[in-house]
């Protein structure tokens, strides 16, 4: 069954209220919410090479309609994120249906249909002064001494324009209050950004959370190799706790510590509660 028929079936069997996929508009493949009352639009449903975080959109929909049943196109990275969002109670697995899309390179499609699988190019200056996007975290540790690694990371961090794009685009950044907006940690309204604290705060938070989708690195206007940093942090988590974020829906070592976690996630219907409180 092709994609469109599969989605049509989900609507006919009344399994979903909305389906998140992609649709072409003015030559751009953009995310779109397909609904039952506009079934004719389904003809235009497509898969896109550019990746948008459909699951983050799902959390926004759930904030407004806590019982909404959502279907979505899901690649490997989307599935890992969904698992993590279930673990952290940002989405209810009973309300999500996925149509899984293969992402793996194969002899037929060297990079399949996902931008993530295209290796990033690292320029010559970045190679000598900064960090190669495609460096292997282990050899990176072996190749350079502490001092050299520190100066390379500082070269990268110092480029930061404090756009908060890495946090905004990240599907697993769902805290009620973000530490990066905490005035005592990161001074608001000033540039340059506090380095390396800004990046290290985010790096520690991604321990046990980052599912390595690469969206942050894609969104970083300054080409800071954020994934390498978060991979390194998660290597520690996997060594100590044998836990890989998004691999399953088991509780994470960071959610079982107690009722109260350090990074308090927002409740699933946060927006609705807020709107009630302010009478909107």
């Amino acid at each position, binding site marked *: 069954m092709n994609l469109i028929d599969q989605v049509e079936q989900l609507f006919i069997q009344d399994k979903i209220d909305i389906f998140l996929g992609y649709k072409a508009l003015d030559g*751009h493949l*953009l995310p779109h919410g397909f609904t039952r009352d506009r079934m004719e639009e389904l003809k235009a449903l497509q898969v896109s090479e*550019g990746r948008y975080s459909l699951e983050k959109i799902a959390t926004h929909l759930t904030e407004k309609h806590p019982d909404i049943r959502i279907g979505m196109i899901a690649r490997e990275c989307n599935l890992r994120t969904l698992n993590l969002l279930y673990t952290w109670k940002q989405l209810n697995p009973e309300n999500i249906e996925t149509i899984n899309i293969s992402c793996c390179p194969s002899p037929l499609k060297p990079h399949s249909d996902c931008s993530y699988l295209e290796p990033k190019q690292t320029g010559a200056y970045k190679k000598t002064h900064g960090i190669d996007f495609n460096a292997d975290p282990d050899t990176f540790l072996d190749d350079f001494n502490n001092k050299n690694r520190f100066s390379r990371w500082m070269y990268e961090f110092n480029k930061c324009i*404090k756009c*908060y794009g890495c946090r905004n685009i990240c599907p697993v950044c769902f805290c009620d209050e973000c530490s990066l907006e905490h005035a005592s940690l990161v001074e608001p309204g000033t540039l340059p950004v506090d380095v390396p604290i800004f990046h290290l705060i985010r790096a520690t938070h991604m321990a046990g959370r980052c599912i390595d989708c690469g969206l942050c690195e894609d969104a970083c206007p300054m080409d800071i190799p954020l994934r390498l940093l978060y991979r390194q942090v998660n290597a520690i988590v996997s060594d100590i706790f044998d836990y890989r974020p998004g691999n399953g829906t088991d509780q994470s070592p960071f959610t079982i510590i107690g009722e109260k976690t350090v990074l308090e996630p927002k409740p699933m219907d946060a927006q609705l509660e807020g709107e009630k409180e302010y009478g909107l």
Partner: protein
Amino acid sequence: MDCKFVPAVCSYCGTGCGVLFEVIDGKINATLPMKSHPVNHGKLCIKGWNLHEYINSYMRLKTPLIKEDGRFQKATWDEAIGHAAVKFNQIKDQFGPDAIGVLVSAKITNEENYLAQKFTRAVIGTNNVDHCARL
């Protein structure tokens, strides 16, 4: 319930990054960078990321205001443009066209900037026209 994504161009500066408004139930809920846009390739600065904040701000002006008796009063566009035209003419008659200057912006299009300088030179009659990109 409705969820759509509307492409637009960031209105904050002349770079013109492509943004995507996440519209849920008719209200702009978030701003995303447009991945396939030739200008910004899926990246934005902090202003672009927060476009929805000013669009939804309760402080946003939704009608023109005219100051009367020291207080701003709501007005229609015709009233506001008429009022500005009368005042410009008064200033021009009393002090001459060089008493008026026009500052244009990188936030508007090339064509709008062209129109603004045409208006300044041909209608008002002064060369006092400048652009924020020169500041």
